[in-house]
């Protein structure tokens, strides 16, 4: 511990004090003795990896959930287990990661909802609009008061969320991952707003897992890991590495890359030295590509080009990592490659075979495997047994010509895969729902990597799994590379991309803003491309 609560100020100065907070959801202990202390008038960063329990702690503070145990004080008063209404009345405002806006209502209606101005028994809409416009002018948060929320941009919607809290007189503002969906100019604008609110006497708690933001905006930091508060730091004088170490609980492993590249080089026969793949490398030069993608364009739900002319290729025995802030088209790119999303234009070739017009199954037969980013939604059927999940997508292989499932082979397959991929508990009949996150992911990985494949799409392969499983999965990916597989890795964790990939592509607003050998990449240099502050048209 580099800081202790007692050194951070007098007790009376605390806007928020939460101690010993416990919260369990079914099988998950989201908070186990978590604590948080925030002084009045500061910008406080609450950091931790996905699943560390940050959002739960803030939901408890906001009154959306009651803690199982622990106490909380706001402005010196005990408020343990209060309601949303109490929290709002006490000046707490929460801006949720997923917007809590009613799309069919107007901006003004969303903002005044629950505290509507009235004239007699009528809802006084004109006054609502006037109030919102006044607040908008005072705070500099520009919003069109009379427009439907459905018509707003993401940045505007977030401003509406902040105005909602200010309209209720919030003095303590909690923002859950506010930048995940914003463009860099919008992020800068948000920082300006937050600083102005702080200067006006407000207290701000910012939940994030992005270290650059923490360093840029916060004054103090609370670090959470696995449901516990593990550190409190003063931002000044703290390096991102120190914060990262506290977040993951060990030195960040950035070392394994060299060794891994060596393995790949051996496979490739020595004469093909991947470590110096030139940045200007052109796909058509390379006839040995396992997968070649040219000028891929995907249209998203808002009719925008979410993937906007992406070109790349991956050789056997190579990992191409895609770095980037989430929401820059990575999800759509992977889904388009897997056949789950229609293409607007472009071509996809797997082992020289054009699969552009083929469906999911045909692409699988062509040698494509896919670890999807969301195992609960796509990767697993939670109510199916492990053995059934292990044949999902391969059900034809495990059926007779008459369409009857071959139970014996499905069981044998499960037995072998469970042993090879160390799924625990080793019971093929258990529903996937009842496994831990790490073991669920192992089932997905066993299915996708335990069969013959040439190209693997690995999307967020270690999201929400424990450390042991992360290492297991990383080892598997390296082994697959050594065995000559081509892997496209998408990860929100920059260090994971850097640790595994041979080349790194940075995706920004639907384009690859840069492709470079991983040996030349660092968190700093990638960060510039990821935030769009530096761009270079990729080959």
């Amino acid at each position, binding site marked *: 511990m580099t800081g202790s609560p007692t050194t951070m100020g007098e007790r009376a100065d605390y806007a928020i004090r939460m101690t010993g907070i416990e919260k369990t959801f*079914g*099988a998950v202990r989201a908070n186990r003795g978590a604590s948080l202390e925030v002084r009045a008038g500061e910008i406080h960063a609450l950091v931790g990896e996905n699943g560390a329990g940050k959002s739960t702690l803030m939901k408890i503070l906001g009154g959306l959930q009651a803690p199982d145990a622990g106490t909380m004080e706001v402005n010196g008063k005990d408020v343990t287990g209060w309601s949303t209404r109490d929290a709002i009345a006490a000046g707490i405002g929460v801006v949720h990661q997923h917007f809590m806006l009613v799309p069919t209502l107007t901006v003004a209606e969303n903002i005044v909802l629950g505290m509507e101005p009235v004239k007699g028994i009528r809802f006084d809409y004109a006054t609502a609009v006037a109030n919102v416009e006044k607040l908008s002018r005072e705070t500099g948060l520009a919003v069109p008061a009379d427009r439907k929320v459905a018509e707003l941009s993401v940045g505007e919607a977030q401003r509406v969320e902040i105005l909602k809290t200010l309209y209720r007189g919030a003095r303590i503002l909690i923002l859950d991952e506010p930048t995940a969906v914003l463009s860099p100019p919008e992020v800068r604008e948000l920082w300006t707003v937050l600083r102005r609110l702080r200067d006006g006497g407000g207290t701000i708690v910012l939940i994030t897992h992005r270290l650059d933001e923490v360093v840029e905006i916060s004054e103090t930091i609370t670090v959470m890991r696995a449901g516990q508060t593990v550190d409190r730091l003063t931002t000044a004088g703290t390096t991102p590495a120190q914060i990262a170490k506290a977040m993951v609980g060990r030195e960040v492993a950035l070392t394994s890359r060299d060794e891994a590249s060596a393995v790949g080089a051996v496979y490739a026969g020595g004469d093909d030295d991947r470590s110096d793949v030139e940045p200007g490398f052109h796909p058509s030069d390379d006839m040995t590509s396992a997968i070649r993608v040219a000028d891929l364009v995907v249209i998203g739900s808002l009719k925008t080009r979410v993937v906007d002319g992406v070109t790349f290729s991956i050789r056997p025995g190579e990992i191409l990592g895609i770095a980037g802030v989430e929401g820059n088209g990575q999800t759509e790119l992977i889904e388009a490659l*897997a056949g*789950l999303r229609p293409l607007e234009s472009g071509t996809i070739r797997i082992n020289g075979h054009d699969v552009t017009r083929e*469906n*999911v*199954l045909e692409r*699988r037969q062509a040698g494509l495997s*896919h670890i*999807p980013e969301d195992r609960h*939604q*796509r*990767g*697993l*059927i*939670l*109510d*199916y*047994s492990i053995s*059934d999940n292990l044949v*999902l*997508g391969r*059900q*034809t292989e*495990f*059926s007779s010509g008459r*369409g*009857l*499932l071959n*139970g014996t082979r499905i069981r044998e397959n499960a037995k072998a895969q469970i042993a090879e991929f160390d799924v*625990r*508990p080793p*019971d093929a*009949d*258990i*529903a996937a729902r*009842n*496994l*831990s996150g*790490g*073991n669920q992911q192992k089932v997905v990985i066993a299915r996708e990597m335990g069969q013959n494949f040439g190209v693997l799409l690995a999307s967020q392969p270690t999201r929400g799994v*424990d450390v042991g499983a992360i290492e297991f999965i990383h080892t598997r990916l390296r082994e697959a590379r050594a065995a000559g597989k081509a892997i496209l890795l998408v990860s929100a964790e920059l260090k994971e991309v850097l640790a595994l990939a041979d080349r790194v592509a940075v995706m920004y607003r639907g384009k690859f803003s840069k492709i470079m050998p991983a040996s030349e990449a660092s968190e700093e240099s990638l960060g510039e491309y990821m935030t769009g502050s530096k761009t270079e048209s990729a080959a």
Partner: protein
Amino acid sequence: MSARFREQLEEALFPPLVALLVALICGDLLIMSYGQSPSTVYRLLLEGTWGNAYGFGQVLYKATTLIFTGLSVSFAIRAGLFSVGAESQLAAGGFVAALVGMGLSPRMPWILAIPICMLAAAIGGGIVGGIPGWLKVKYGAHEVIVTIMLNFVVLALLNYIVAAKIHVPETLHTPEIRHGGIARLDSFIPAFHGSAANLSILIALLTAAVVWVYLFKTKRGFELRAVGLQPDAAEYGGVSVGGIWMRAMILSGAVAGLGGINYVLGYKQYYEEGFAGGAGFLGIAVALVGRNHPLGVVLAALFFATLSQGGLAIHAFVPKQMVEVLQGVVILAVAMSVPEVRRALRQARKPVAA
């Protein structure tokens, strides 16, 4: 017994048991409001149904249609679709079977005639089921509302055809079929004399077995259940969600339509306006109580058939309408306890350690 099987069994069995308890209590209150003794009435109810051959035959007859409609509804639910269309699918199936039966030559061997009529029934129901399936896949129209609305349209259309074109004067039914009738049970077991029970019950049980094999032992069933549980995951597994929905609605309609043979081929030998008489809607209850499993559906169909026939047995003491109240109570109680039981059981189960 594996842990998972036990879990599924618990989730399946608790809600109907809770419902039965609630229904018994409600039944007591209703019986007492009529000034009768619950134990006497319940004894009469059982004696009048399972206690004699005629009553039992009637239970079997009523259960037959309910097995078909219950299977139909549960088949669609397994694909993630809530179909309320069994009522008109049943009617359409019966109608088409009657039409075809009227046209068959009596010289045709029965081994051919009956399957032809059955196929006609299935096709009739399948067409009515296919329309909401098509509207859902093509236009995203919600199948619940479309099937409800289509019930009225199809029933009105059938009524029109019968009334305007082919009815026997002074009645609301078609002429009798010339061939394709299914034998009554009393021609084998005389004790069933007078009851409408016929060999359709065997076809119903066979259909339940086929549905079970299809759902749990075939590739298509694997895909259908995957779509019902998690369409995104099924799509990821290479399954065409729209294709499965279309197929599920057609097959669901076909099964309900097949139910039309019980009345038309097995009992009256003609189609009559309103013969479905709510058996399609009750199919939803049967599927719900039977937890969408073919074996559960058969048991639930017997239960609802018992209630329905039991109403007649107790009519001398308590109005038979009591059982209609109890049916509603059972459905409500099961619907309310299913999510509750699942949540409670999942909470109670310790997570499997990693």
